């Protein structure tokens, strides 16, 4: 299937969904409106709300805050995950000792941490960053840990026979292997950085997309809630596209990413 056809079909899905939504929220079927505007709003209202946000420029501040929180959460979580993942993989004793605690911490639903972070770090961006970090850290950590442990035995032996010292093995074998695993989880970890930021904002903040949605919900402004959701989805798709570009550059050597090349 050509790219144009595919894109046309993808757009068609959106058009049909929005048309049905508009129809059922404005035209009574058997004397009854199936999607009452109070609960479901309608596409026209949602769209005009989005236009209003962009026209007045209010939205940029909120987008910038959410973006900034996501970036910080991603960077801090990734650096932490890489360092600890490396350390655990190279020191099996440490890994064995901490294993139950890592599992415990990872099993904890992060939402319950949000109030604690708000208490510790205030209602500014850092409580949201902290929430994002707890999500990103574990994804990166598990991947790097796996990546370092599963370095091919032959490649490792080859490095040794070529005369590599422990430090050179680190740099030329363990490090690239670990990074490749980290990058393979890039989409997930970036996504979770955004989730952390938005959920944190939703639970208590003064700015950001999550705040916008929460405010609209507080006054039963369903159009505002939907508008916030649409802006958030577009935001995530844009970030994901950026990640794909980065990934293509960094993982050229991997057959899976660029199979046709």
């Amino acid at each position, binding site marked *: 299937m050509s790219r144009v056809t595919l894109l046309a079909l993808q757009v068609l899905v959106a058009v049909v969904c929005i048309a049905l939504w508009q129809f059922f929220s404005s035209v009574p079927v058997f004397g009854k409106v199936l999607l009452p505007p109070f609960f479901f709003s309608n596409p026209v209202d949602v769209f005009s709300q989005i236009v209003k946000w962009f026209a007045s420029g209010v939205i940029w501040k909120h987008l910038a805050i959410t973006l900034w929180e996501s970036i910080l959460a991603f960077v801090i979580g990734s650096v932490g995950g890489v360092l600890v993942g490396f350390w655990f993989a190279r020191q099996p004793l440490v890994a064995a000792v901490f294993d139950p605690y890592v599992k415990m911490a990872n099993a904890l639903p992060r939402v319950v941490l949000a109030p604690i972070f708000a208490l510790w770090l205030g209602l500014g961006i850092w409580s949201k960053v902290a929430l994002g970090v707890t999500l990103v850290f574990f994804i990166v950590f598990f991947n790097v840990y796996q990546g370092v442990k599963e370095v091919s035995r032959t*490649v490792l032996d*080859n*490095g040794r*026979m*070529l*005369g*590599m010292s422990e430090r050179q093995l680190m740099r030329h074998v363990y490090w690239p292997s670990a990074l490749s695993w980290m990058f393979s989880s890039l989409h997930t970890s970036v996504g979770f950085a955004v989730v952390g930021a938005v959920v944190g904002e939703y639970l208590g903040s003064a700015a950001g997309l999550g705040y916008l949605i929460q405010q609209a919900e507080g006054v039963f402004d369903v159009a505002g809630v939907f508008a916030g959701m649409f802006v958030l989805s577009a935001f995530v798709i844009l970030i994901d596209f950026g990640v794909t570009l980065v990934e293509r550059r960094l993982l050229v*050597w991997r057959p899976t990413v660029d199979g046709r090349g």
Partner: protein
Amino acid sequence: MTTPTAVALEDAKVAFRLGDGRVYTAVEKAHLSVAQGEFVAIVGPTGCGKSTLLNAAAGLLKPAAGSVKIFDRALAGLNRDAGYLFQADALFPWKTALDNVAIGLEIKGTPRAEALPQAQKWLTSVGLGAFAGRYPHMLSGGQRKRVALAQVLIRDPKILLMDEPFGPLDAQTRQVMGNLLLDLWNADRKAVLFVTHDLEEAIALADRVVIMSAGPSSRIIGDWRVQLARPRDIFEVRLDKEFHALHREIWSVLKDEVMKGYAQSTQAAEAV
């Protein structure tokens, strides 16, 4: 005239501890020496411990008894005089062909600016001058072996250890690679220890063919000198009368071991 001995295994025994606590002896009392400039091939049935012996010479495994001497000095740790060509893919997948070859020099501290042109030269001499920018996954199995060969040879090791290096390749590619290896080896005649399960390949390449018995506790049971003239062409040499005579002679010994090895592996399977 005495040529120095490059590799000497003296009554080497290599054993592994199995998961259930038993000890598995792979190789028993192996006595083998490779002179400088000599090409020795080790042939034996599957699972006879040929690779184990090679790993002992490389220092990747420590013999349980006996000793390994490299140029008359007992081997401690890894064998720094040896280059090792692995059976499986051992290239660094995140480096291009050129970087994979250059790394051999960079490890020794050669500046990258100096290492790269030399790596390019080596790539050209293994016939891959135009593929410098490719990553391993973009190369065929034979091309990857060529890169691996360049990666090992650029360090100019005194000894070459090869573990069924052409095993995964198809028959034609193997012969082409064999000829390439002989050409490169002819230039400076390093000591080579070459492990293979293919007797024809062994005779075509080597100065000496060593036969091992079926495992476990396998031993070296035969040692033949190959008198075929050099330089050899692998395609031609297989048609030689002497080649056939030698092949028949060695095969008569090897055949029993292959059957024994096969019987053991099927029995083991039945026992499970």
